């Protein structure tokens, strides 16, 4: 057999989850081994497919498609080459064609169309995979038509509040102001979520493109991505991509000769969960403590530095390019009822096949947990899942068949939120989890309103007494009363939703609170 003269392309992800499992060492080992055996290779640091149980996932380009091997450790590299890695040779870690893996094949990837395929910071790669088609279309449209397309697509805020994106944009477009801003909320603080991180690290151009489209649509010339400081890998990828976009005139003045101007920068948060709340985020960007603002005025009218501001989550903005590329009908055809399009679901915690599953709305938790996730990592029964981050309810098995849909979830006091699903097996102590929700709220409260600031600390104390069996009936009534005050009286979602995990734990798993009794 004649070896091809052309250098073979090998992919090793630069996603931080892959790196956390050794991808950098694997990449170095591949380069070293190829040099040792005198093989000409082209090593590409791609983004992750989001199949994290297979990371580090090494892919090799072949005529048949990309062949996968994983999870690969540096010590496997020599044997992979020996087994004929570059000719799709068989090896215990061989996964065959990556795109045929059911986990990936059964998804509907719109926002994450390029995940794992491209080199995240290569503009040429981005353009070769439909990048900047949406903005090119938008530049030829009237701003009102761009907003209409976003409205018609049914896209709602993916940060958790699910407010229709087009309506927000229309408000900003109609607001008076010499300067308008596009702010991207990349303060992805919810445990169990990593979709924003994957976009920032794995496809930064799609976010840049989405923000530019928003700027053109509402007449904003400045944009800021507020990224949490726990995401240093995302910061580096975004800054590299922004630099490349400026160099190619996809940012800056007179973008591609259109006469439109859009400047973009990245600002880092500083470890405050509350800054994921949009008005606290704006305060933070202004250089202040992240204290929640009273609404009204809405940020769309008086936002950053008092100017009209579009503030959207990373996934919301990253979903805009495909809507402008393929049309609002295409996007709208996915989903159910008022939840249109797709949701990037993140399977996290005690799950065998954790990762990113982008599916049209309407999929059930059971399907996600068992068909995709393969059950718990520990092999024990799944007792509960927390959906929507630390402010989301703990959902029992009896509700696993509920379709993933904003309204269906809200009806049961559950929350789809940012699409994070954290799985717990039957060793979980729900009283401990309920106490943690209150503790977390106390740690992260901005302190502006009393129900959140004081209520969270009192909540911890009441749960401690309840669990200790100190007048449990009285304590439970007090806890429910306190939760009611927080739900109804808090200024923002932190204090206003922290009772959801507490109450759901208490309602669905009361036995965990009565151990002392």
């Amino acid at each position, binding site marked *: 057999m004649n070896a091809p003269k052309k250098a073979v392309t090998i992919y090793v992800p630069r996603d*931080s*989850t892959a*790196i*956390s*499992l050794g991808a950098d060492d694997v990449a170095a080992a591949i380069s070293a081994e190829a040099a040792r055996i005198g093989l000409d290779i082209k090593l590409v640091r791609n983004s992750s497919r989001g199949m*994290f*149980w297979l*990371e580090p996932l090494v892919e090799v380009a072949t005529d048949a498609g990309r062949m996968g091997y994983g999870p690969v450790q540096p010590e496997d590299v020599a044997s992979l080459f020996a087994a004929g890695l570059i000719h799709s040779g068989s090896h215990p870690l061989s996964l065959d064609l990556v795109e045929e893996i059911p986990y990936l094949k059964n998804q509907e990837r719109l926002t994450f169309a390029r995940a794992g395929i491209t080199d995240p910071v290569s503009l040429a790669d981005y353009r070769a995979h439909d990048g900047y088609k949406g903005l090119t279309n938008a530049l030829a449209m009237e701003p009102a038509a761009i907003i209409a397309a976003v409205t018609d697509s049914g896209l709602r805020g993916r940060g958790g509040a699910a407010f229709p994106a087009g309506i927000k944009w229309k408000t900003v477009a109609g607001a008076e102001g010499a300067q308008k801003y596009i702010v991207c909320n990349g303060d*992805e*603080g*919810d*445990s*169990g*979520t*990593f979709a*924003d*991180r994957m976009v920032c690290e794995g496809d930064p151009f799609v976010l840049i493109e989405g923000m530019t489209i928003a700027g053109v649509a509402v007449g904003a010339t400045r944009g800021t991505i507020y990224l949490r*400081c*726990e*995401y*240093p*890998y995302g910061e580096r990828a975004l800054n590299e991509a922004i630099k490349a976009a400026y160099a190619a005139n996809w940012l800056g003045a007179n973008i591609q000769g259109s006469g439109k101007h859009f400047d973009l920068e990245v*600002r*880092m*948060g*500083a*470890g*405050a*969960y509350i800054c994921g709340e949009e008005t606290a985020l704006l305060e*933070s*960007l*202004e*250089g*202040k*403590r*992240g204290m929640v603002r009273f609404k009204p005025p809405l940020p769309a009218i008086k936002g950053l*530095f008092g100017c009209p501001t579009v503030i959207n989550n990373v996934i919301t903005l990253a979903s805009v390019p495909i809507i402008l590329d393929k049309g609002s009908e295409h996007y709208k055809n996915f989903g159910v009822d008022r939840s249109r399009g797709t949701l990037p679901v*993140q*399977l*996290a*915690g*005690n*799950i065998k096949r*954790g*990762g990113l599953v982008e599916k049209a709305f309407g999929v059930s938790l059971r399907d996600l947990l068992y068909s995709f996730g393969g059950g718990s*990592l520990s092999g024990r029964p799944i007792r509960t899942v*927390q959906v929507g981050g*630390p402010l989301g309810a703990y959902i029992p098995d009896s509700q696993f068949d509920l379709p993933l849909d904003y309204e269906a979830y809200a009806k049961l006091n559950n929350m789809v939120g940012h699409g*994070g699903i*954290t*799985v*717990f*097996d039957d060793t*979980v102590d729900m009283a401990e*989890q309920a106490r*943690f929700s209150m503790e*977390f709220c106390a*740690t*992260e409260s*901005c302190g502006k309103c009393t129900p959140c600031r004081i209520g969270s600390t009192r909540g911890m104390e009441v749960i401690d007494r309840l669990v200790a069996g100190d007048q449990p009936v009285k304590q439970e009534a007090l806890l429910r009363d306190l939760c009611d005050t927080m739900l109804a009286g808090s200024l923002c979602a932190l204090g206003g939703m922290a009772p959801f995990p507490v109450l759901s734990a208490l309602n669905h798993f009361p036995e965990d609170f009565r151990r002392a009794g």
Partner: protein
Amino acid sequence: MATSTFERRSPPIKLAELSSLSAADSAAINAVLARLKDLPGALLPILHGVQDALGYVPKDAVPIIAKSLNLSRAEVHGVISFYHWYRTEKPGEHVLHLCRAEACQAVGGRALEAHVKTTLGIDFHQTTADGRYTLEPAYCLGNCAVGPSLMIDGALKGRVTADRFDRLTGVTA
């Protein structure tokens, strides 16, 4: 008399002498200010710049930053103390951010937390006696499918068991 009245008089007070900042630290702070002070909403980027350069935001940096941004010292202090990321004490050689959030709890995060604290002999926000490690809590490192997670000087580590922690740090109890 051995000392003259002239010699006994206190020297004039100079601000620089009251500050605990070394000349190098002052220069680093001033370089950050020169680079960033004209940004809109410059305070957070400046504090990041100072912490990146020195490892922390020294208390004596506060008046310098305040003056440069025309803010009160209370305002600058208020921002530093609001955000968990900023620290006002010099950290150890390595900073560990250990995730405490739910996804890591679901795969043994609480047990790992106990192991880390016992092994290092410190609690959160503290530095080991030998000055090697500072331990900080993180509420999610975005590595939720492969927890428990730990960040060592900005490098993310997943599936951190007690054994792996010991190997990564080379510390044993």
